[in-house]
């Protein structure tokens, strides 16, 4: 290709006339070209910022947002914010503030939100609030007997635990959800500690999520590497068949693949019936709706993510290296370990990281082919959003998952480079 003359002749011409202006005009031209580059980038940068980054920020905000008590019981929360719960008794004004707040909120949505939020702190707080609010309008209120009034309605109001919980949840922003996502909570003394043993769930879920993702990744690498190696070494027709076998499932709808596996593996499914008809087994094996099912289906779905980067990498390793090593008398296994394997590490790490990152966020597949014991973080995020309407909890768990993924992504882009990870050579 002959491209040199065009660009350079102009420069030569300029240089002959005025060197100073040349630099300037080159600089200007360069600046202009950069401006065009930014102009081309701008639409997608803006789009991604508005419709991708901003939603993530909203989620971060929701994890600490705590408006219910402030808007449901404004007077009480203001009053309690100055109360030193450790050293001083509850001021009487708090009772009258609560009475007026409850009267004001009665029949409005704020009351329901307030009751729901407080029930997170102490079970039964919901009915205490609703009951008190329901009974108050019927009772006559004198000047300073608000305290007695509340005590008459329910003697739980004598228990400072309820007032401390009310104070604790009166902050504009709360660490409650973020702590809860790690099975922690602030106790009545104001210290951070673990929740009761039987209530602990999210650390277990996090560990499980990481374990499933790790195991799936390892299996994918373990079978993906020899598969990729075979694709590189085998004659072309074999390579094409292998490529087809990997790419056809890859392009097939996730749900179509999942339903195919369920039909294949279930108790009276194709596979079990096949084995029974051959007389290999008498009773059907339990292959789905448990961890076996989750691993089989996840490996099937994620295998291409491991194979393709390794395949790309192995293709670039010159074949004669192995030939040379074996012609020098080295055992092929030794040659493989000392020469071939180290050269393929970039492919292995790209494939492994990619597989892990995709696996760790999985939710649909385990929910369709797993049992209760295989549900990952993603499942709980969806559960809290769509079923129990606890958006703070969903967001806090989302942050935990996001941190895991972004940490790995950062690691991968520093060590491997974004391009390697994305498969751009």
């Amino acid at each position, binding site marked *: 290709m002959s491209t040199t003359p065009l660009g350079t002749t102009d420069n030569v011409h300029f240089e002959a006339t005025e060197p100073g202006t040349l630099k300037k005009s080159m600089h200007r031209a360069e600046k202009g070209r950069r401006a065009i580059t930014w102009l081309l980038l701008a639409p997608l940068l803006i789009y991604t910022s508005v419709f991708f980054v901003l939603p993530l920020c909203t989620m971060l905000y929701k994890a600490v947002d705590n408006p219910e008590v402030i808007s449901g019981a404004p007077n009480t929360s203001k009053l309690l914010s100055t109360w030193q719960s450790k050293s001083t008794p509850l001021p009487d004004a708090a009772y009258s503030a609560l009475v007026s707040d409850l009267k004001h909120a009665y029949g*409005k*949505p*704020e*009351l*329901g*939100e307030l*009751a*729901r939020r407080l*029930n*997170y702190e102490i*079970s*039964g707080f*919901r*009915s205490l609030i*609703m009951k008190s609010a329901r009974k108050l309008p019927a009772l006559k209120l004198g000047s300073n007997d608000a305290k007695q009034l509340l005590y008459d309605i329910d003697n739980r109001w004598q228990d400072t635990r309820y007032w401390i919980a009310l104070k604790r949840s009166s902050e504009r922003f709360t660490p409650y959800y973020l702590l809860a996502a790690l099975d922690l909570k602030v106790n009545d003394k104001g210290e951070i500690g673990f929740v009761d043993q*039987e*209530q*602990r*769930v999210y650390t*277990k*879920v996090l560990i*499980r999520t990481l374990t499933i993702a790790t195991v799936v990744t390892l299996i994918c690498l373990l079978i993906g590497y020899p598969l990729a190696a075979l694709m590189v070494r085998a004659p072309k027709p074999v390579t094409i068949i292998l490529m087809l076998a990997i790419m056809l499932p890859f392009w097939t709808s996730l749900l179509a693949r999942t339903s195919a596996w369920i039909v294949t593996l*279930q*108790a*009276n499914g194709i596979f079990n019936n096949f084995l029974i008809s051959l007389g290999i087994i008498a009773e*059907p094996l339990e292959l789905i*709706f448990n961890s076996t099912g989750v691993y089989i289906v996840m490996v099937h779905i994620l295998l291409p993510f491991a194979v393709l980067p390794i395949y790309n990498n192995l293709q670039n390793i010159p074949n004669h290296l192995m030939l040379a090593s074996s012609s020098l008398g080295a055992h092929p296994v030794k040659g493989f370990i000392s020469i071939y394997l180290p050269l393929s590490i970039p492919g292995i790490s790209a494939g492994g990281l990619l597989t892990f990152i995709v696996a760790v966020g999985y939710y649909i597949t385990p929910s369709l082919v797993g*049992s*209760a*014991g295989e*549900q990952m973080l993603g499942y*709980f995020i969806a559960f809290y*959003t*769509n*079923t*129990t*309407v606890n958006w703070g909890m969903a967001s806090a768990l989302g942050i935990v998952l996001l941190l895991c993924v972004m940490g790995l992504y950062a690691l991968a882009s520093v060590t491997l480079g974004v391009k390697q990870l994305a498969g751009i050579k």
Partner: protein
Amino acid sequence: MKKLISINKLVDSTRRLTSILALCSVPIIGSAAEPITVVGFGGSLQDAFHSAYFEPFSEQYKVDVIEDSYTGGFAKQKAMVKTGNITWDLVQMDENEMIAACDQGILEPIRKQELLLADELNPSAFSRCGVGAFVWSMVSTYSPEKFGNDGPKNWKEFWDVEKWPGKRGLRKQPRMTLEIALLADGVASDDLYKVLATPEGKDRAFAKLNELKEHIIWWESGAQPLEWLRGGIVTATSAYNGRISVANQEGSQYPIGWDGQLYSMDYWTIVKGTKNIDRAYQLLDFMMKPEQQKLFAENIPYGLTNRKANQILPNALLSILPTAPANQKNALLLDSYFWLDHEEDLQQRFTSWVSQN
């Protein structure tokens, strides 16, 4: 001759092509009247709604009824109300979720005086934000292929995996599951919530569940247990009585274990701020009609809310309703207010427990 065939083929394939192209066009919006969106719990229940209520309503009033299904919770409605973008109008809800949603201002209060047939309804069918849709019941059933006529007939027997081996299906939520565990442990239905309210009672329920844990497969939507029973995945399961009867109408023979049934009412609710409120009341009125309710019960045998409807039901049908006196032995009415107070901590404890292997 050959040519003819190939021309036919060509015509045929062009026709197919145009139909595919037609598919690509913008989704078509139906007739002139504003359509109403109704949401139920899906499956054979939805089918019953469809043929008893929605389809005839749509024909009579010349209005499109858009149907959607969900698996409970009120996250969607809450998001709609908060954003003012109301896409659901009339929604079927569980009692406890309805009360919570009502407290949070997500539902329209029901104006009883505007319902044409209010006097014919059972008084218990009225709640602040809901009108009773039907009475459902959670019962036990088993696979007749495995156990013939002699399967586990109550919750106590349900726990006996020695005599009746195989997996058990239970719904993956603390509500009803803990009650079932206590019933299986011999707690009388009258005392059940008193026991469950105490810490010892909760421990007792979880301890009882522990006995069965490795045999349980958890279901999440009402259609699953029967599907699993048919597929041989479970040999006995809890299930909604209506779903069982529908399967039996289609040729299966699943026995219904009424002993210790758990029952409750489901409600129709109107999402706050919907533009279709008049239409929603119109549909509510339609669904309260005795003849429509009769049609509903014929499709899926759930208890009806219109007392007149019960009078016109044939005896054979009455006997398989949860409300039939013969079926009320040890029956437990679910306490929605108990669950409103204890949902969070029991949910978390249950989640933690259920996901331990």
